[in-house]
């Protein structure tokens, strides 16, 4: 009854992603390396070396052919999943904080950091899927700077040419990347930094987590807040469990703001909340530091959580007989 402990990173995990089939798990970390794992046994399939700084973000396309990564070395890279080759590298003036593929795999959106006099910029690249993929256009198809608070997370929505963004001030907004205009916004969605954004399978709603200790489900068309999940700890990540009525939240007090060494102070547990009833149904312990990122298997029967140097993968079965309680069965 143990979770699979995926040991391979030497520093904190920054983001993890399942591929569409759920057989692979991509993880990136502050140790400059991207790893890919088999989800059924936790074996490491390989690493992607090349970045020279913290890898902040990864995303994989629906065919598991390409994936993109963004790093603090100011590079956005396109990789071949199977061979581990870096196919193309884009260079920017500042670090890349977030990348995401579009539904049709033909576009990639990326956010670059606001630093050294450069504004926070959102760029959309067209990805050529012909040949081995090493021939990409250097220039972005669309580029714009969101006004006001800088964007921290973004993703494509179900509507054409609209992306959903989360901002440092706690605002969430919809941008038309073709024109660069803000279509809609909700300034008070959160009261602190939006830390994560994950879409529902059909991208009609999404969940955001924030340092204001809450996570919210938004309608991606109207930006209405549909559900709110309030916890007692700053949240770093939130995920929607497909095919199951749950959302998973993770976070914890940062080590430097924890007043004691007591583990209990940090509350480093993965929390399961009922998506519709807004009630907490269970918790899974295991981490000894804040949880940075959570991802749920596309089938919804397992999940992975990444913290400081440790990545766990849990196989979960939500037991229907014990109703409000949640049994977590780990291999």
């Amino acid at each position: 009854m143990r979770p699979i402990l995926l040991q391979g990173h030497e520093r904190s995990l920054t983001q993890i992603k399942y591929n569409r089939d759920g057989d692979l798990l991509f993880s990136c970390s502050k140790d400059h390396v991207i790893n890919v794992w088999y989800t059924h046994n936790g074996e490491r399939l390989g690493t992607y070396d090349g970045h020279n700084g913290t890898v902040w973000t990864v995303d994989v396309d629906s065919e598991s052919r390409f994936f993109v990564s963004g790093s603090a070395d100011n590079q956005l890279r396109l990789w071949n999943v199977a061979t581990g080759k870096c196919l193309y590298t884009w260079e920017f003036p500042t670090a890349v904080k977030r990348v995401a593929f579009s539904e049709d795999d033909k576009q990639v959106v990326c956010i670059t950091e606001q630093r050294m006099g450069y504004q926070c910029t959102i760029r959309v690249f067209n990805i050529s899927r012909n040949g081995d993929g090493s021939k990409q256009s250097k220039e972005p198809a669309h580029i714009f700077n969101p006004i006001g608070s800088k964007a921290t997370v973004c993703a494509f929505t179900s509507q054409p040419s609209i992306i959903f963004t989360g901002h440092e001030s706690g605002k969430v907004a919809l941008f038309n990347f073709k024109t660069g205009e803000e279509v809609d916004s909700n300034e008070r969605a959160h009261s602190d930094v939006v830390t994560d954004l994950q879409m529902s399978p059909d991208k009609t709603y999404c969940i955001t987590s924030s340092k204001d200790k809450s996570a919210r489900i938004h309608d991606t068309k109207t930006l209405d807040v549909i559900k709110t999940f309030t916890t007692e700890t700053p949240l770093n990540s939130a995920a929607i469990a497909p095919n199951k009525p749950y959302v998973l939240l993770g976070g914890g007090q940062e080590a430097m703001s924890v007043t004691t060494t007591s583990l209990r102070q940090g509350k480093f547990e993965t929390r399961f909340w009922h998506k519709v009833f807004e009630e907490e149904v269970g918790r899974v312990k295991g981490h000894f530091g804040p949880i940075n990122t959570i991802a749920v298997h596309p089938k919804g029967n397992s999940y992975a959580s990444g913290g400081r140097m440790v990545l766990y993968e849990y196989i979960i079965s939500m037991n229907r007989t014990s109703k409000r309680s949640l049994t977590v069965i780990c291999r």
Partner: protein
Amino acid sequence: MSGVTQNVENVDDIDYSDIEAKYKVEYDDSFDNTLIVDGVPIIDKSKLERLLTKICKEFSRKGVPVKPDDIFMPWDESTGKSKGYLFMDFRNANDANTALIAMDNHPFDAKHTFKLNRFDDGEKYANMDETYVEPEIEEYTPREHLRAWLTDPQGRDQYVVYRGDDVEIFWHGKPSQCELAYKPDWKDFLYVSWSPQGTYIATLHRQGVRLWGGPSWKPQQRFAHPLVKLIDFSPCENYVVTWSNEPIVVPEGKPQGPQYFSPDDEGNNLAVWDIKSGHLLRTFSTNTGTEGAVKRQMQWPALKWSPDDKFVARVTPGQMISVHELPSMFLHDKKSLKIEGVVDFEWCPLSDKDRDEVEKVASVGAKGAKKAPENMIAYWTPEVANQPARVTLLSFPGRAILRQKNLFNVSECKLHWQNQGDFLCVKVDRHTKTKKSIFCNLEIFRVREKDFPVEVVELKDTVTDFSWEPKGERFAIVSTNDPNLGNPGPGITIKTDVSFYQLDRVKNDFKLLKTLPNRTSNAIRWSPRGRFVVLATVGSSTKSELEFWDLDFTLEDRRDGQVVKEDWGSSIQSLGLADHYGVTDVEWDPSGRYLATSASAWTHTLENGYAIWDFRGQELLKQIQDRFKQFLWRPRPRTLLSKDQQKQIRKNLKEFSRVFEEEDQRESENVNTELLALRRRLVDEWNAWRARSKKELGEGQGHDHAKEKQSEEDKEEIEVWVEEVVEQIEEEVED
């Protein structure tokens, strides 16, 4: 003035009256620095100078110097003699007041006595309206019932929570019945305290103590003791004792009256008050032993009340016990109990039976045939010279020595009465001959038996906590032989053993029931109704365990069937284990149904808050709150039901409980249906919203993924759950 204005009127039409009014100088036309002195010898002019010098001398001797120039002597022109009185001017009203106090009724010589009056008074009384005006009778408003909270139909208890600057009073009962009872807006106080029967709640302010009570929580009484720090109520809630580390100062011009300190009280710091009238009864000083080289920490309560509120006693260590009668607060019999070397004493508590008798005597009055049982004091004296240490039982007010026991090699004694006064345990810390190690004896006096037989339980270890079971024949001790005892340090948790003892009815002595070895528990908390006990580790930064024990686990079977011969100590059963991180206080509610644990910000700042558990150790409520300070259950007075009534209830318990069970059933159904309805509504809303957004999605996009997605989404229907919790599983995942 008017002339001036008229003159300028022609030149300029300016009205100066407002400026004049503003800068008008108020003349002091009062004569408050003038006194009239009556009773002066009648003289003729020749003797005037001599008389005046004499008077001045007399006044100066009393500390109020006057000059002959300030004295005006009126003369009777017809006789040429003085009129027997004179006027005296002082520098200011203050001097006049001092003179009035010092010289009024001063015997000048054998025939003459000075009578001093204020000059103003003469005028005042002369102008007094002599017609009698009937005082208006205030309309009678009945006072609120101070024990109204006991009439709660659900029989709930109350507790007070002090957090940050806010106080809140809550009801505690079944989950659906827990609610806020009152949120007072009391400001700027140190802490709150209930009176022992829960009638009042006291707040300690800079200016003094305030009592609140009744259903509307109105102010009930106040005691002006500035900078008060500690408060103690008498057991029957008739009196209250307050203490401040600052000695009492009575500034001039302070309000006077029976509710206030008078100049006689200056320098004292302990005050006794009557709660009903608010009057100050007496003040004491706690700094008696200033010349003593060892400054011991002050004992609190400094005054110990007899259980019937008739006497209050304080000990002067090494010398005597002074017992004061109430309400006069005079020394009983005009003398203290002189006991050389006395260190500490305790009053014997009244048992329920005694209390009934006391009440009967009080109601029947002096005619009652039976006399109320006498009070009892237990005290101990250490070894002095060749005298052994000694524990003495003394009756009071009879002052007869009932029993004495000599003890040897004693370094410290502690007196523990069982709460019914059936047993007295003297915990004797003894040292070995070399005085290097300390071990412990428990000397147990069986007070209800003839000649007070004493039995000794000898222990090898040091006993750090002792506690009688309320109304029971059992006690629990925490003992330790940990070498770290006595040198506390961070991270050091002392290993302890907890033992239970019970009176063996057959042999009539106390026998060990069970020892729980290798604990860290340092506090024993018996349920106020006995039987259940909680062992807690408080004040430790690493351990915070709570153990819930039942000492009569098999008793139920025994009552039904015939007496089962069972093993000694077999009925002890652990009910549960719990943990409250950083716990500082553990307290049972007065009914013995719930236990409250709290972590106060006064001790540390980690996870402050409180939790309420049932007697089995199931957590019912947990509140983590920043700056949480205090949690106190509201005490209850003794039951008003007679013994027979209680027996009747116990006999028909099944019938009563059926009513409650039905109520519970109804309520839980109610809750269930409400919850279910809410959930159904939520699910319907969610599904409706999903359907809408899916439709929109279908309209907006016609590309090939749509079909595939549709099939995926079909699975995403949310089920409605009807059942309640079956079980909750928490699994530790090790690293």
